[in-house]
């Protein structure tokens, strides 16, 4: 009952000189079970090798500006990898089926549900989580606007709301109320804070325009 398949992200890939190619058993820094083989990231010209069910493969995720090389199973969601493997628990679990928005992150600057995204599909892409909107310990403008406008109650949907707002404002820096509502339409707030959220997004637009 003891298959110790403890993935150690980032550190595991340390010391690899060739492009993504990692040997299997015996690579002490990785500690992968004998049962799980690894597949190297294929150079573009060659035929892709299928990753067998249950095996792990390497992905490179740039999360909040930091490149993370990780070993993941194909079925793992990006949400699971962010929270359970990278410890970034700001992104929340609400439904795991793309129906609530609590897990909203940015992928290449666009709002996406991390629960509906396989980690392997995010390979090579830039991911921004709510933690990534901070500068050190300073809140970003969108976060500040939500705080000032009391645009949350229990706060559980809030990181997702903030990311959706961020995505909206990066694409449209001066949205009107209708555009704000449309942009936030993929995030449920069960506490029903929507009216305050709309104000927060408008305020965030102001703060961003002012360079704050």
């Amino acid at each position: 009952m003891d298959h110790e398949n403890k993935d150690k992200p980032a550190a595991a890939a340390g010391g690899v000189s060739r492009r993504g190619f990692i040997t299997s058993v015996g690579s002490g820094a990785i500690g992968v079970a004998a049962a799980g083989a690894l597949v190297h990231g294929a150079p573009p010209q060659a035929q892709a090798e299928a990753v067998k069910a249950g095996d792990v493969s390497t992905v490179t995720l740039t999360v909040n500006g930091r490149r993370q090389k990780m070993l993941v199973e194909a079925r793992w969601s990006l949400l699971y990898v962010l929270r359970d493997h990278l410890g970034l628990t700001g992104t929340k679990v609400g439904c795991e089926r793309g129906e609530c928005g609590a897990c909203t992150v940015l992928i290449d600057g666009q709002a996406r549900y991390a629960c509906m995204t396989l980690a392997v599909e995010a390979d090579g892409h830039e991911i921004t989580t709510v933690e990534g909107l901070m500068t050190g310990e300073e809140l970003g403008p969108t976060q500040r606007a939500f705080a000032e406008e009391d645009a949350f109650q229990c706060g559980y949907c809030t990181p997702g709301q903030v990311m959706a707002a961020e995505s909206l404002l990066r694409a449209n820096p001066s949205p009107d109320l209708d555009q704000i509502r449309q942009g936030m339409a993929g995030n449920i707030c069960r506490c029903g804070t929507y009216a305050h959220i709309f104000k927060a997004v408008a305020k965030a637009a102001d703060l961003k325009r002012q360079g704050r």
Partner: protein
Amino acid sequence: MLRTFAYVRPASVSEALKQMEDRGARLHAGGTDLIGCLRDGVFEAGKVVSLGKLDELRGITVAPDGELRIGALTTIAEIAAHPAVAGKFAALAQAASVVASPQLRNQGTIGGNLCQRPRCWYFRGDYHCTRKGGDMCYALGGENQYHCIFGGGACVIVHPSDTAPALIALDAKVRIIGPKGARVIPLEQFYVLPEKDATRETVLEPGEVVLGVLVPATAPGQRSGYRKVRARGSWDFAMAGLAHAVTLKAGKIADARLVLSGVAPAPWRLPAVEKLLIGQKLDPKLIARAADAAIAGAKPLEHNGYKVPLVHGLIEEVLGGIPAA
């Protein structure tokens, strides 16, 4: 949490086709429907074949003759925002803009939207229904408030796509490739009614993949649109929707294509209504007759009778919103 599967990301379409030869291989385009189906156990995936590397299937181009060419992996959000779509192909832009939610529009693709599986809660639930190879349709004697009023048979789903009715109204064609080669067929012929085969929604043969859609240049004076009626303002599929493409010449309707969503197992074209309209002036009397014609032959189930006045009202509202001149 998902069951395990093998995974491959082929570098070319031909490689993808080869990978799809395996039984149990499932295509991952945007993944929005695939992930949902796997979570609900609608089907199993022995192997997931990701189209993520196939950049040649992304993007929108306009041919010199005005034809719109959309790659299958173009996201719904890209289609909704593209300037070439918004102007002349308004029905498609409007349909794309009311699909699901912003995040799902960023992820979902046009190919996936056309090929998505139905949302029937029996199909998606722990029921071995007709469409999944069982011998019973649970909606027939059950909670069928969201099911069809036209075209039903051994199965009474509605097709959930918004873009499909809009594209059919715009007379689009779909490009398909498979082990036996490539083909291009009108999108209107892409869908399968239960009377023909209650276990699939499209004519795609095993191993076939949608490459893209082609939308012919619009006639001068054509206007189009898509109106969706649903219980909530976001996420929900249509209780009923209407795509229209109408061309007026000298105050008369020169051409009309009307396609309903949410009322039949396939996007539901209204040829009888179109025939009524063509050659006529658009006035309230004509609109009333058109609305009556649209619901002729409707076969509501126990709980979805409201769809009949809904379709009637949609025709009235949409046609009523087209300026007569």
